[in-house]
């Protein structure tokens, strides 16, 4: 009994986790307008999704935002990790502390603090404010991923490069970047997904000029049930799954 009881329990929890997602996916192919009764197989909600111009535009906006936020946060995050790993400088603990605060503080606290900043400094709410905010909350995750990779790294390689006359920049480019490449890819994918999924921060720092997907979904699900959301949710699920598998594949492959 002690052998199978834990397994049954694990299975039960996974069932609870996946039933809502399963229902969502199955009903995205439902021909019936009501969200509760089965009316036969159909792709009509996917069609109506792609016929909705505002929706398609929000999709492109979200993708572009996620791409740029992931790229910028990977660059700055990698440089931060390298600086923390290699340089001695004043206030290193403060820097670490700030990254930790970003990661641990509730999203809503980060959201209002950024809104206050943007409004008082006069940054218009739209693409730029969203980008700055998304890069900020993705940053600590990239730093941690890259730091983990650097911590197991043989220090004699950069020293050898320096002895052979390479400048700091050349050494970073030719020795360190190739070493942290898998971590950069994994961090980029993580940032991309975090950005695509964010609701809380985006609600505060986006403006009418740049509508993104989560906010569009938010306004749809607040009132009643919309079968288009099932279709969109299914697409997002498949998309995240592919991204997650990619990042796992990159990380495990690089360990061998």
């Amino acid at each position, binding site marked *: 009994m002690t052998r199978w009881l834990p397994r049954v329990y694990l299975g039960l929890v996974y069932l609870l986790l996946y039933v809502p997602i399963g229902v969502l996916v199955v009903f995205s192919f439902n021909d019936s307008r009501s969200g509760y009764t089965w009316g036969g197989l159909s792709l009509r909600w996917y069609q109506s999704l792609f016929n909705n111009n505002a929706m398609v535009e929000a999709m492109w906006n979200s993708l572009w935002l996620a791409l740029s936020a992931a790229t910028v946060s990977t660059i700055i995050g990698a*440089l931060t990790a390298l600086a923390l790993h290699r340089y001695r400088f004043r206030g290193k603990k403060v*820097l670490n502390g700030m990254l930790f605060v970003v990661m641990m503080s509730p999203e809503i606290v980060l959201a209002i603090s950024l809104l*206050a900043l943007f409004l008082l400094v006069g940054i218009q709410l739209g693409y730029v404010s969203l980008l700055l905010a998304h890069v900020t909350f993705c940053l600590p995750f990239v730093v941690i991923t890259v730091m983990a990779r650097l911590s197991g790294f043989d220090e004699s390689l950069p020293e050898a490069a320096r002895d052979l006359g390479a400048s700091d920049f050349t050494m970073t480019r030719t020795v360190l970047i190739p070493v942290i490449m898998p971590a950069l890819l994994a961090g980029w994918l993580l940032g991309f997904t975090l950005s695509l999924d964010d609701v809380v921060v985006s609600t*505060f720092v986006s403006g009418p000029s740049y509508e993104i997907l989560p906010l569009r979904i938010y306004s749809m699900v607040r009132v009643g049930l919309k079968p288009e959301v099932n279709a969109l949710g299914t697409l997002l699920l498949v998309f995240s799954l592919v991204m997650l598998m990619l990042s796992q594949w990159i990380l495990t492959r690089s360990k061998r």
Partner: protein
Amino acid sequence: MPSITRQPFRTAVLVLVWGWLLFLVLAPNLLVVGASVMTRDPGTFISLPLNLDAYRQLFDALYLEVFLHSLYMAAMTTLVCLLIGYPFAWALSKLGKQRQLLLIFFLIVPFWTNSLVRTYALKMLLATNGLINSSLMGLGWIDEPIQMLYTEGAVIIGLVYLLLPFMILPLYSVFDDLRQELLLASHDLGAGRFATFIHVIVPLTLPGVLAGVMLVLLPAMGLFFVPDILGGSRNLLVGNVIKNQFLDARNWPFGAAASIVLTVTMAILMLAHRLSKQRIGEEGAG
């Protein structure tokens, strides 16, 4: 101190990193602290004079009730996550390594899926004419649909569903580190299963419990879209109050004060987590 000209790369990196964090982390947080002690102003959002009115307003009967109710729902969410997550992490840590990794992967998959969409999926199940009610009526177990949506329970279910992995992952990591020799030693010294659990397993997994509590309790007070979708207007979170104050009522001092209460709660929890870890470190060494 090396001069700027000799290490342009180093200087550029440090300026960029510091600049970003000072402008987008430190400055905004100071702004919120500042805003919480200023006066509400319809034109410029905040103005002088300095005062503590916003903090006083937190203790108004109306808001105090919302806060306590939010705290209650967050505490229930955390408790349910702990009750589900603790045995889950334990059972998981007993499996073979390969299988553990696979199961962790499947735990993270939903977490990578849009949280709004997952909340919406719950709405489909819980609605009055939703799948749970229609299945139960189809089976003849109930005659009338049960009101599940727009209740306190629905909000707690939604929060548990979104936050469970954040409880399980730190717990799994402490169970994974738990050394079997300690359990065997406890057994050899004559302790029964229950005594081993209370005196060995619980103290050693306490840092994981506290980390999990920290990662669940705070978001459970902030995720305003969960009550928006599942809870109706009576089951608000602190997050809803902050959002309304900032985006609708334009009362920045009050919204800022509410968010500082969240931050202080976070600081206290982090301190407790640190202390519990230190205690175990000392006992392990001694």
